């Protein structure tokens, strides 16, 4: 059981990240590399605030907000300064490395002695009964709230416009709306969620480490692609649910690789498992290419 629990913990926390990446990659069709910087950004601000004695609960909205700012920066670089999408992400990712160092103060901030949302919850009698399940339960609550809010948002008028801009930006312009601003909005929301994931991850691992963002985009993309392609035909399931499950499956792949193979082979095995999942789900590029014509 405990194997399943730790996979769920990690999968759920990275599920928040997957929701963020889903917005940019699937909805906006924007390969956003900012996440490699905004994930540790959320962690850095969380570690800094918690060591300063700020309530761990408060770090959640603050991380989200600062992630939003990072996303806006990427958006402005791309939309207003007309830098290509990949490049604007790389620029922000690079800049955030230093910003994260400044925020956290050093490259490694441990939080063993401090309170986190998880340790606070275990003091609460309601949660305390859950024992080892506590981390999983809290992660689940956070990711489900994020998912529901995102689902609701995507059903609003503003959400409609966001979905439209990735699909067909010409239409958005025809609706007398500046598509650039909508893209910035999407990047802001996405990076807000990613930073929030960083915040929760940092509290769960009880440490901020500057290098913790490396490869975040790979995990995020893998989760989104696994999730959306595995459950493509399952119309009862929302894409937002699918990407969270995708994240859990990704972590399962990694766990299987850790468990059964030598350390050197780890990454290769993960890659192969990832590939197998994709082949089985028969991934095809579904988007109509004609739209860009």
């Amino acid at each position: 059981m405990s194997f399943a629990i730790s996979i769920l913990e990690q999968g759920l926390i990275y599920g928040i990240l997957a929701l963020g990446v889903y917005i940019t990659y699937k909805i906006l069709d924007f390969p956003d590399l900012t996440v490699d910087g905004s994930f540790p950004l959320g962690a850095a601000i969380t570690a800094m605030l918690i060591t300063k004695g700020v309530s761990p609960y408060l770090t959640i909205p603050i991380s989200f907000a600062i992630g939003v700012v990072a996303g806006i920066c990427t958006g402005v670089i791309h939309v207003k300064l007309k830098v290509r999408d990949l490049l604007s992400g790389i620029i922000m990712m690079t800049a955030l490395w230093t910003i994260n160092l400044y925020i956290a103060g050093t490259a490694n901030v441990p939080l063993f002695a401090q309170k986190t949302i998880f340790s606070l919850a275990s003091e609460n009698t309601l949660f305390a009964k859950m024992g080892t399940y506590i981390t999983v339960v809290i992660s689940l609550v956070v990711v489900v709230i994020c998912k529901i809010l995102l689902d609701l948002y995507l059903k609003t008028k503003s959400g409609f416009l966001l979905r439209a801009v990735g699909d067909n930006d010409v239409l958005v312009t025809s609706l007398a709306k500046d598509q650039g601003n909508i893209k910035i909005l999407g990047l802001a929301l996405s990076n807000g969620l990613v930073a929030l994931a960083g915040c929760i991850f940092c509290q769960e691992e009880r440490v901020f480490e500057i290098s913790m963002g490396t490869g975040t985009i790979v995990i995020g993309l893998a989760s989104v692609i696994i999730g959306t392609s595995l459950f493509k035909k399952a119309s009862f399931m929302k894409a937002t649910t699918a990407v969270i499950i995708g994240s859990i499956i990704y972590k399962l792949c990694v766990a299987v690789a850790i468990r059964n193979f030598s350390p050197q082979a780890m990454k290769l095995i993960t890659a192969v498992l990832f590939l197998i999942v994709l082949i089985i789900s028969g991934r095809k590029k579904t988007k109509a290419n004609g739209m860009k014509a």
Partner: protein
Amino acid sequence: MKKKLLCGILSVGMVMTLLVGCSSKKDDTGSKEKEYKIGITQFAEHGSLDNCREGFLKGLKEEGIEEGKNLKVEYKNSAADMSLSGQIADDLVNSKVDLICAIATPSAQTAYNAAMKTDIPVVYTAVTDPVAAALAKDDGTSVGNVTGTSDKLPIKEQLEMMHEILPKAKNIGIMYTTSEANSVSAIKEYKKYAKEMDLNIVEAGIAQTSDISLACDGLLTKVDCLTNLTDNTVVSSLPTILDKANKKNIPVFGSEIEQVKIGCLAAEGLEYTDLGIQTGKMAAKILKGEAKASEMKFETITKPGFYGNTEVAKNLGITLPENLTKNAVDMFDKIEASK
């Protein structure tokens, strides 16, 4: 439909391998001698860290706990990936090992975090500053069921040694990676002791390997000699630095044996294998029940040793003082190609 079926089989298969993986490792508790099972989580693939691991197993062996006989080792490496490091730590905890050996700071932190909920002790090594990493209190006592060894550099001794070899050198250059917490704290310490000895530390911070060449050129115009930390990024580019420094006839000091082997003039430094052995012995005590991790202070290398390279000295036209060489742990008379 076929695909869905395949997909289902795959998922079930994955879960099965997980479960089988754990059930098959149940050891036979019926045997006479107790068999120990430990997990090793190492942060990255790296020469010094590998030496630590080998030393650790050697240390255990010296205390009668030998791999293949009465010891089972699960070794995991997280390839410098934090999220992987966390998952590995969880995995080791779930495998119910008797002890986790964590090599390097991030691994030590994730291992301690994962083991906190259980009674599995964590023994770390190659953590430069256990206090800053929140693994030990200011007085060196443990914060929990965790202890280990620090690879903190003998900075004061290093500066004294450098002063003895090059009495006229005033400006000492150090290159380090700004993202490595260990390097940052080492720089602080260098500055502190340098001030006491009326020396001047010229630092050059880099972000990644590609910055090294430029930073090195800049630094070499301002200094009388260079010294190294155990900074991962800088050390892996040491050949480049040595090459540039040699062209300007500027001596480069190292911080451990490997660096002296490949062309640093001298080092008052660490032998990571020894550090590992020391850690292994601590772990043995814990495994045998002779001591508790929570009651053990973290240790540093008992005494630093002098390492020198006479070929480098000859090339630079420097003679290494005899009172250093006669007590040297190891002297090299040629420059080895770097690994």
